[in-house]
């Protein structure tokens, strides 16, 4: 038999269109905002997550990675002397200033690393190589920021912190959360660009020996080193994400927008489902008089909500995929993993079923005797 829920739902096409619009709006807004949140979160800790280091030695009370204070490189030797350490290397990550050929100045995130090490360098290199960075003024930037930095070709020379720099390679999709694009160079170059003394570093990246407990090694390093903090890569990544997402309020803004999208969906679906229920109230009363249990009526309403949710989700996700796809070519990526997509489906269905509770309450109160009233 044709489903009563389906027929009731599709019977009034205008109302169904309004319901769908509400759900689609909700799905698009929620998915884009959540995707932005994940995109931003990923971008904040990109460099940490791809460092291949096990532990990070940082200046004391660091709030975020771009804000590290320099300390003496002598600590590197203390780290190397610690049992369980496979290798360690100096690293610079800090804001710098990039002067475009037209004189405009842009902020950048300087990333200076040991070219002979295995940690802290660029990834996804699509042009040039790390070996190209061995020349005195060489840098690698991400192609996403070519326009922003005014780079038109490989070999172009620019100015960083008053020093000459030459673009020798490009990476792909290495984004930063801030407006400061990442610029990779040798540690030595970065010292110059960042104005550090020769005996200073900003971070020490540590690789543990195979089989060594990272947390035990962290404790050991803390006991040996003074005036610095030690984090596992996962801890440091979380700290960085938390600072930018919640410390600055940026994440709250995005999440609140997602929540608003969700709430708008709930309200629209609840309102339209309720209006549909009221329109069909006599039919529900007839069903009750005929002997339908409340459970049967609930199923009809929940089925309507579920069908609306499924169609709204499908349309909403199809629309969302367009900006998600386009964003992959931009500096702000919207990332929506399939798990999140599935979670959003569950959320959409819960939203629709939750919204149907108002209607369920209405049919629960129907007096079947109403069918005898004219």
């Amino acid at each position, binding site marked *: *038999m*044709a489903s009563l829920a389906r*027929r009731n739902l599709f*019977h009034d096409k205008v109302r169904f269109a309004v319901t769908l619009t509400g759900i689609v709006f909700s799905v698009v807004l929620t998915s884009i905002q959540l995707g932005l949140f994940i995109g931003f979160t990923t971008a904040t800790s990109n460099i940490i997550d791809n460092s291949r280091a096990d532990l990070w030695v940082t200046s004391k009370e660091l709030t975020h990675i771009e804000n590290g204070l320099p300390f003496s490189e002598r600590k590197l030797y203390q780290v190397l002397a610690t049992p369980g350490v496979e290798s360690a290397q100096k690293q610079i990550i800090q804001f710098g200033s990039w002067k475009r050929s037209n004189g405009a100045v842009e902020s950048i995130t300087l990333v200076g690393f040991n070219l002979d090490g295995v940690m802290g360098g660029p990834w996804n290199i699509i042009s040039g190589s790390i070996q190209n960075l061995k020349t005195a003024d060489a840098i690698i930037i991400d192609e996403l920021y070519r326009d922003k930095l005014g780079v038109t070709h490989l070999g172009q020379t620019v100015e960083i912190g008053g020093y000459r720099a030459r673009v020798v390679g490009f990476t792909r999709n290495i984004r930063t959360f801030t407006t400061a694009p990442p610029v990779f160079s040798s540690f030595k170059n970065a010292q110059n660009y960042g104005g550090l003394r020769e005996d200073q570093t900003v971070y020490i990246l540590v690789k543990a020996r195979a089989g060594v407990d990272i947390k035990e090694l962290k404790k050991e390093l803390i006991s040996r080193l003074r005036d610095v903090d030690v984090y596992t890569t996962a801890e440091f990544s979380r700290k960085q994400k938390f600072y930018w997402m919640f410390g600055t309020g940026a994440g709250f803004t995005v999440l609140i927008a997602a929540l608003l999208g969700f709430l708008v969906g709930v309200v629209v679906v609840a309102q339209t489902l309720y209006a549909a229920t009221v329109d069909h109230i006599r*039919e529900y009363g007839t069903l009750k008089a*005929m*002997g*339908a249990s409340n459970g049967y009526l609930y199923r009809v309403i929940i089925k309507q909500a579920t069908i609306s949710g499924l169609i709204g989700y499908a349309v909403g996700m199809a629309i969302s995929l367009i900006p998600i796809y386009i964003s992959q070519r931009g500096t702000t990526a919207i990332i929506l993993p399939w798990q999140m997509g599935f979670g959003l489906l569950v959320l959409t269905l819960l939203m629709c079923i939750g919204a149907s509770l108002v209607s369920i309450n209405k049919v629960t109160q129907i007096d079947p005797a109403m*069918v*005898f009233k004219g």
Partner: protein
Amino acid sequence: MQTAISVQNLTKIYSSGEAAVLAIDGVNLNVNSGEVVLLMGPSGSGKTTLLSIMGCILRPTSGSVRICNREVTGLSEKELPKVRLDHIGFVFQAFNLFPTLTAGENVELALDLKGISSKESRRLATGLIEQVGLKDKYNVFPSNLSGGQKQRVAIARALAGNPDIILADEPTAALDSHSGLSVMKMLHNLAHKGGRAVVIVSHDNRTLEFADRIVNIEDGKILKEHIPSIARMRKGTLPKRTEIANTIVG
């Protein structure tokens, strides 16, 4: 004949704040299988309230209601729908068909309520729609049916699941004379050929000729209960309309 419905010492009081209205006042009534009982009376006399109580839709304030020999007054709100589903079919003045379902699907829905499979529902509904003479209207939506056709679909729906009792509230009120006659014949046959107890609430004098018993209600009480002369004359077949009319007039 078996007693399908039995109400004893029935009262119903509607309370609204401090005001109370006695809608049914000590009514005793038995309706047998195979019998058409007509409840008549002026508006507000309590006939629809009595029908609602007999249909297990409304609870009496006091008294006993037995449906197919089962006392139902003490049943819970969860048990009463099952009694309606198992024993009672309803026919309403305004038809109360589902506008988004076709004629056949309206009948299928009633079978679906009983948990009958979709395939079997379709088969049974086809038979019922044929039975009410609407074979070619199975896939037609109610909006495209005449009043008489709608009421016949409603009767087919009421018959879904083979109930023991049919309760009809003003089934001819919204119909022209020809359709009204057709519907009444059908209800009459459901009692006389189908062995069902049929209770009809009506103001319509056209329904008188089909009643085996007429119960006049006023102010919540049974004022008069009588067997019309037509019924006494009837010998298993319907009399000609002219004869009936003469009898009524006479």
